[in-house]
C-alpha cells in the first residue's frame, strides 16, 4: 500500500476547479475519512456534509471517481485506482459550495409525489396489524430501507434530461405507500406520480438500482407504479 493518496477535490460552486491534495493513506480508510482529513489538516475552508458516519443518515453522498456513492461506507481501497481519487459534489443538484449540494428539489419531489402517509385511524383506535409475510408488505421489503442520500437522483439520466422528473427516490417512496394497506391516498398518489414528469418518464436505464448503496431497486417499484397508473387510467380513476 502506498503511503499517500493524490486527491482531486471540487472547489467552488457551479463554476470552480479541482484542487489536488496529498492525503496519508491508512488502513480501512473511507472516502469520508479522506475528505475529513483535508478539511481538518490541509484546508479548513472545504465544505462538505456528513452526520452519522455509519451509513444511516444519507447525508454524505458525493461523486467519487465519476460515480455517486455514500462516502462513509466507501473504502478507498475499493475505488482509488493507482492511489488517485476524484471527489466532486452530486450531479443533477445545484452546488452550494465545494461538495455541498442544495437538495431542496430532491426532497420537494418527495412532497410532489405525495410521499406523506395518510392513515384512516385515530389515536383512539387499536394498532393496525401488517403481516410481514403478506404479498404487499414483501413487495416493499427493500424499498422501505431508503435513507434519502440522493445517489439515485444524482445517477439518473432522465433527471438530467428532464428536471421536472420526480426521480427514483420520490417514486420509490410513493411505491412503498401504495403497498401500505393502511394508506388512504391511493388515487391521489397515483395521479401525482403519473405522466411525463412521473413514473412514465423512466427509461429503465437502472442506474438508480445499480448505484443505490442500500441495494434497493427503484426501477422495479417504478415499473409497478407504471402498471398501477395505467390500470387506474383505464378505469377512469385519474
Amino acid at each position: 500500500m502506498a503511503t499517500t493518496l493524490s486527491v482531486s477535490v471540487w472547489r467552488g460552486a457551479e463554476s470552480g476547479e479541482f484542487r489536488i491534495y496529498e492525503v496519508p493513506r491508512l488502513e480501512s480508510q473511507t472516502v469520508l475519512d479522506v475528505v475529513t482529513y483535508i478539511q481538518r489538516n490541509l484546508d479548513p475552508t472545504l465544505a462538505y456534509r456528513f452526520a452519522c458516519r455509519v451509513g444511516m443518515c444519507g447525508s454524505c453522498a458525493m461523486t467519487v471517481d465519476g460515480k455517486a456513492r455514500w462516502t462513509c461506507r466507501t473504502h478507498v481501497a475499493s475505488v482509488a485506482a493507482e492511489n488517485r481519487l476524484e471527489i466532486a459534489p452530486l450531479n443533477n443538484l445545484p452546488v452550494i459550495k465545494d461538495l455541498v449540494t442544495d437538495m431542496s428539489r430532491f426532497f420537494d419531489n418527495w412532497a410532489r409525489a405525495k410521499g406523506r402517509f395518510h392513515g384512516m385511524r385515530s389515536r383512539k383506535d387499536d394498532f393496525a396489524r401488517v403481516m410481514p409475510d403478506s404479498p404487499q408488505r414483501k413487495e416493499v421489503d427493500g424499498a422501505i430501507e431508503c435513507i434519502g442520500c440522493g445517489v439515485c437522483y444524482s445517477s439518473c439520466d432522465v433527471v438530467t434530461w428532464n428536471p421536472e422528473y420526480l426521480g427514483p427516490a420520490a417514486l420509490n417512496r410513493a411505491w412503498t405507500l401504495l403497498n401500505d394497506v393502511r394508506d388512504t391516498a391511493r388515487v391521489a398518489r397515483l395521479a401525482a406520480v403519473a405522466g411525463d414528469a412521473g413514473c412514465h418518464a423512466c427509461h429503465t436505464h437502472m442506474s438508480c438500482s445499480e448505484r443505490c448503496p442500500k441495494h434497493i431497486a427503484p426501477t422495479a417499484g417504478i415499473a409497478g407504479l407504471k402498471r398501477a397508473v395505467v390500470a387506474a387510467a383505464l378505469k377512469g380513476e385519474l
Partner: protein
Amino acid sequence: MNLRNQVLLWAAQRYSAMVLALCVVVHLIVIVYAVRNGLSAAEILGRTRGNYGWFAFYALFVAAIAIHAPIGMRTIVAETFGWRGAALDALTLVSGMALALWGWRAVFAVFA
C-alpha cells in the same frame, strides 16, 4: 396534455411495441425468404396483389409504427431540446398521421 392522456400515450407506445416485435420478426422472415429464393418484383407482387392476409398484416404493421414512432420522438425531442407543450403534441399527431398515410398508401399499392 392532461395527465390521463399522457398515461394513455405511454400505454399506446408500450402495446404498439409488442405488436411491432411480432411484425418485425415476420417481416424479416419474409425478406430473407424473398431474397434467398431470388423472387423478382413481379413475383412478389403476384403474391401480394389481392391477398387480404398480407394486406391486413402490413396494414397492422404500419398502424403500429404510426403509433409507436411519433410518441417516442415526442419524448426524445422533449429530453434533447427541452421542447414541450401543445405545439410538440400537435407535431406528434401530425407525424403519426403522415406515417400512417404514407405507409397505408404503400400497402395499398402492392395490394391493388
